[in-house]
């Protein structure tokens, strides 16, 4: 990865003094991720350019303890943009190589430090989440003229569109120290979430590098947030590896706990409302021993645990990660024994019969069935209504008709990327009534949320009661 900084303020070769690097020498420095090289492609009186090229060792990136440890089994690692794209690594190298200049010190020619120079900066591949617009948003307020050209993914395959990289040229009258600090802070911010942290005092570093400009930057919150955001852990568990086996993205398999609320606007309150309605239905049924099929991160379990009338609560989910999150969210390790004894979390799957889930008074399928491929619904029907056979079963699912009322949701899109279907009220009713008939239950349908006269409620709920058995 490369950055060049050009000064056109005569005598331009003063750049060498400011950077403490002689224009007629090529120098190399060891940095944490590889080797940084500094050289001057041109050094004339009216135009002088310094280049910093960082050579990253791609094998060390994968195999070295520093980076490889946690995700050593992720296929993508050798095929990695890190050796090419300007990111936190380049920022780290800038700081390592030009630390004195960044600090605004120049003992030989102290007067140069405060001078604004005509500077041009070229970064041929800036990793930018948010594209060219984000680049402009971050650099323009600092007085830079921004020329941000998006690099196509592959010029031979134009239909693939843009890549996430910007061929970036900046021009401006800036003090050199400021220019370097801008890059130091903003390159990782643009890259977002792909940091390789090298030390723990990042807040201090941000404060120092942002001195004089960050506090007045209109995007300062975004900058602070992204700069300090922790690297999102790549999926390193079994599911992620299976995605690789299949040649798909790890995230596509590992989305069991993807936050639905991110996609469905207003659903934060809807989720709460839904839980309240489910709990109300369970109370009305007089159920005290409840199994939550597909409990996810345990939102409902927490509500149930807060109500002492639920004496035995089981959360079952097929995602081990969801269960671990549920355990954390329920604060089980901090609850008294009497509460802890009321709840159990079990790894289970709705497409397999599970003896442990039989004999309960009530079962809940809250926002679960729409995550099941329609051909597998019959198996779920068998495991829940045929085999586990709780006296009461509460099912909720989105009402597809209501999707029009979510302005942010594109027409024809589902509320969650993992939804396999979303049903209209008629479709849900047909399914619910057929299940009830086949399995010996009686069913009642209820709205959750405001029941729009035209499209119905946002969520639909069905309460099944097992047809009374003669003693």
């Amino acid at each position, binding site marked *: 990865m490369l950055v060049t900084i050009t000064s056109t303020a005569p005598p331009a070769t003063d750049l060498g003094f400011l950077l403490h690097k002689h224009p007629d020498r090529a120098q190399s420095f060891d940095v944490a991720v590889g080797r940084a090289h500094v050289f001057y492609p041109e050094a004339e009186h009216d135009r002088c350019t310094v*280049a910093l090229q960082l050579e990253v060792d791609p094998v060390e990136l994968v195999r070295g303890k520093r980076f490889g440890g946690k995700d050593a089994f992720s296929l993508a690692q050798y095929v990695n*943009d890190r050796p090419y794209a300007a990111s936190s690594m380049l920022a780290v190298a800038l700081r390592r190589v030009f630390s004195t200049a960044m600090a605004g010190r120049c003992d030989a020619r102290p007067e140069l430090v405060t001078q604004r120079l005509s500077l041009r900066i070229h970064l041929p591949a800036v990793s930018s989440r948010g594209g060219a617009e984000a680049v402009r948003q971050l650099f323009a307020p600092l007085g830079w003229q921004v020329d941000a050209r998006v690099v196509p993914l592959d010029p031979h395959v134009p239909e693939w569109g843009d890549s996430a990289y910007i061929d970036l040229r900046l021009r401006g009258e800036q003090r050199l120290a400021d220019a370097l600090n801008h890059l130091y802070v903003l390159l990782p911010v643009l890259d977002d979430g792909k940091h390789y942290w090298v030390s723990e005092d990042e807040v201090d570093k941000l404060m120092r590098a942002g001195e004089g400009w960050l506090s007045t930057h209109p995007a300062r919150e975004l900058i602070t947030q992204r700069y300090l955001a922790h690297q999102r852990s790549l999926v390193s568990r079994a599911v992620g590896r*299976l995605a690789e086996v299949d040649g798909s993205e790890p995230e596509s398999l590992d989305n069991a706990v993807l936050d639905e609320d991110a996609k469905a606007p207003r659903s934060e309150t809807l989720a709460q409302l839904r839980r309240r309605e489910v709990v109300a239905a369970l109370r009305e049924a007089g159920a005290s021993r409840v199994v939550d099929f597909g409990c996810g991160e345990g939102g409902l379990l927490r509500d149930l645990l807060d109500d002492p009338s639920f004496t035995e609560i089981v959360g079952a989910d*097929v995602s081990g990660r969801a269960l671990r999150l549920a355990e954390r969210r329920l604060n089980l390790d901090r609850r008294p024994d009497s509460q802890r004894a009321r709840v159990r979390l079990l790894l289970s799957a709705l497409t397999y019969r599970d003896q442990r889930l039989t004999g309960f008074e009530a079962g809940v399928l809250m926002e679960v069935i729409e995550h099941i491929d329609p051909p597998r619904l019959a198996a779920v029907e068998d495991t829940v209504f045929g085999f586990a056979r709780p006296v009461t079963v509460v099912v909720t699912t989105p009402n597809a008709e209501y999707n029009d009322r979510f302005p942010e949701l594109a027409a024809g899109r589902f509320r969650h990327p993992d939804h396999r279907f979303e049903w209209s009220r008629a479709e849900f009713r047909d399914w619910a009534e057929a299940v009830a008939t086949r399995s010996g239950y009686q069913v009642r349908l209820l709205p959750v949320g405001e029941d729009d006269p035209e499209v119905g409620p946002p969520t639909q709920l069905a309460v099944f009661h097992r047809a009374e058995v003669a003693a």
Partner: protein
Amino acid sequence: MTDDDVVARELAVPALSLVVLIGVTGSGKSGFAARHFGRYEVISSDACRGLVADDETDQSATAAAFEVLHFIASKRLEAGRLTVVDATNVQREARKQLVDLARAHDVLPVTIVLDVPEPVCAERNAGRPDRDFGPAVVRRQHDQLRRSMRGLAKEGFRTVHVLRGVGEVDAARVTRERLFNDYRHETGPFDVLGDVHGCRAELETLLEQLGYTIDRDGAGHAVDAAHPDGRTAIFVGDLIDRGPDSPGVLRLVMGMVAAGHALAVPGNHEDKLVRALRGRKVTTSHGLAETLGQLAAEGEAFRDEVERFCDGLVSHLVLDGGDLVVAHAGLKEAYHGRASGRVRSFALYGDTTGETDQFGLPVRYPWADDYRGRAVVAYGHTPTPEPEWVNNTICLDTGCVFGGRLTALRYPEKEIVSVPARRVWYEPARPFPPAAAEPVAGEEHREDGQVRRREPDVLDLTDVLGKRGVETAHHGRVSIREESAAGALEVMSRFALHPRWLLYLPPTMAPCATSERTDLLEHPAEAFDAYRRDGVRHVICQEKHMGSRAVVLVCRDGRTARHHFGAPDGTTGAVHTRTGRSFFEHERTEQILGRLRSALEDAGVWAELGAEWLLFDCELLPWSAKAGELVRSQYATVGAAARSALPAARDALERAAERGLDVDGLLARTRARDSNADAFVRAYRRYCWPTDGLAGVRLAPFQLLATDTATFEDRDHGWHLGVADRLLAADPELVQPTRRMLADTGDADSVAAATRWWEELTGDGGEGMVVKPDANLTRGNRGLVQPGLKVRGREYLRLVYGPDYTEPAHLERLRKRRLNHKRSLALREYALGLEALTRAVHREPLWRVHEAVFAVLALESEAVDPRL
């Protein structure tokens, strides 16, 4: 009593029973047990005291010792092993616990009492230094024994043997008796016949169709039937009631049983008949009244004979070394070969949930869904339109008396033979579907006329979860770790197709050993060397297609799909990935299957193999069809970054060099990286081309895994690719050819030619080749030989190891890669794959197939370097 007049008593003990010894301390129980039973068969309370307290006489440890004793006894009985309890057992409470234990495991409790005079016992105790009980203890125990003697049978002991005096104890012999239900020595072949219900004419027709010769008496009554090949008929019960000639059926069956040509178990109708004939008060509904009327016309002698016959029937039979169990209403595995009231009740009436339905009839529990036993269970009792295998069980009651069919199972052939009813003999509550109607898998017609739709082949979590071992024919037992199973469960449950479509998941394949050549990681020489070392001379090199692995299951038509896989209308197979996900949505899947089906038709493959379905291992192209998102987000992205960054760096360096700066090393490296990036981009582009619907999608089948009747791992690869070539000829637009070359690992010229071929394949970025033993499944002197070794091309590997991996400094380090785990996984997954196929073709229950398929997925989730 003196020792002189003692006769040696013969003590009969059922081969599976809980033998409770009773005798005061010093009566010689341990010696007796040691003489007549095996070392591990005897559990002594003294030994258990020793286990828990280091002291066989520590009375304070008695409670703990008996807990241990009961636990061991329970484990042994669970496993079906005769067990002897060596304790005084003079107290009723102690014995009751043991009787309960026997009942809990459905084995017969038996007792042997050692009634030895008190002084003898006292004297023996006195002679043993570790027994310092006073004579009072012996006296008290003796009194308790005396009081116990009379009530033993009432306490539940089915057999009570009492040995009086030292002489009888010493002289007694123990013989083990076969259980009444134990016909394991009878190995068949058998013909198991379903519920006859008085349909004599149909029974005679069926027996004749099965090849039996019917023997008639003077009056023309059928009185016996024998098979020229010595086959034995087995009747599953309900011979009588509802039909036109129950006496005629009984006469024939009783004759066959008496002559040793048949065996029979009772049905609930026979059970009721016995009670009626004995004058008990029974309701005569469900056809019993008719039977009693018909029997009234026969003589009293015949009625007595019928009563004796029906009463003497044993409720279930275990045959053929334990591989076949026959019971009227079926039998769960835990009850096979057991004897208790509840076993009999299950065998006669089936399992119930304890609930009753709206008609007040008990709700049946679908025990067969849960059945996981190895033994075939053949039964009747519940009329179904078509006999259907459910987890190794089959119901043979096809409702003959209701106008259905009378059905037999030929065993071990597992063939179904049936004859239609001559008419509806008895009107069911709801019309029984006529035999001609299309059978519907999973429909069960109950006696009350209700039709219950069962989701066929439901799997249980315990079939896949937890630490498991899967037995494979080719590679022994393969262990699955619990965490791996959990990872696979999520993928299988959330994304995979219905397990009935998943007969196979492809195993992983190991690369050849790492090459030591300066500019390569993989080279054919290592693959040829490996096979040569394994003693394999003839290998086939197959072009490796860079696409997505696909398993294609194609049925001949909708009817066969329905029949074999319970497919809904319009579904005729599956095209799935290495993790069991469907490649395409339903419509495109069916389009591909339709094309393939026609190609198979045109190529004459269906007819040649007589197949109803075929399963192919394929590569589906292009790579971008399925991995498009990955190609864009991973490969194209890195290419874009590299091709934007590196030329700029190169330019800057060139200008610096022109200025005379010493940047030569860095410039050379940057130029190399620049051209590496170009090569990388060229490498992925090869595998991407646009597809629109089916247009552009290509399928490269390289192995025919199985049909409904056979697997083909023993056919050489030439045969497999021959099938592919015929498909190619039939549909060159869909089918992609697989280039290949044979090589002889022992012939240097041949190896050189194959190496050149690989160089040509990979020179312009081809993925590489797979070297396989041409004979296919091959065992070497160290067991299973790798079924294939991949040798990937130098350019292609940039997609795996990064654009710059060819730089010497990188290659040097990359050569250190650990292949052993990958190789071992490849073999285990290969064996599991073959196991799954074999089980599927042998029509084993779905859980058995799924167990092996699931295990492949579980192993795939293990942490192994994914670049291998």
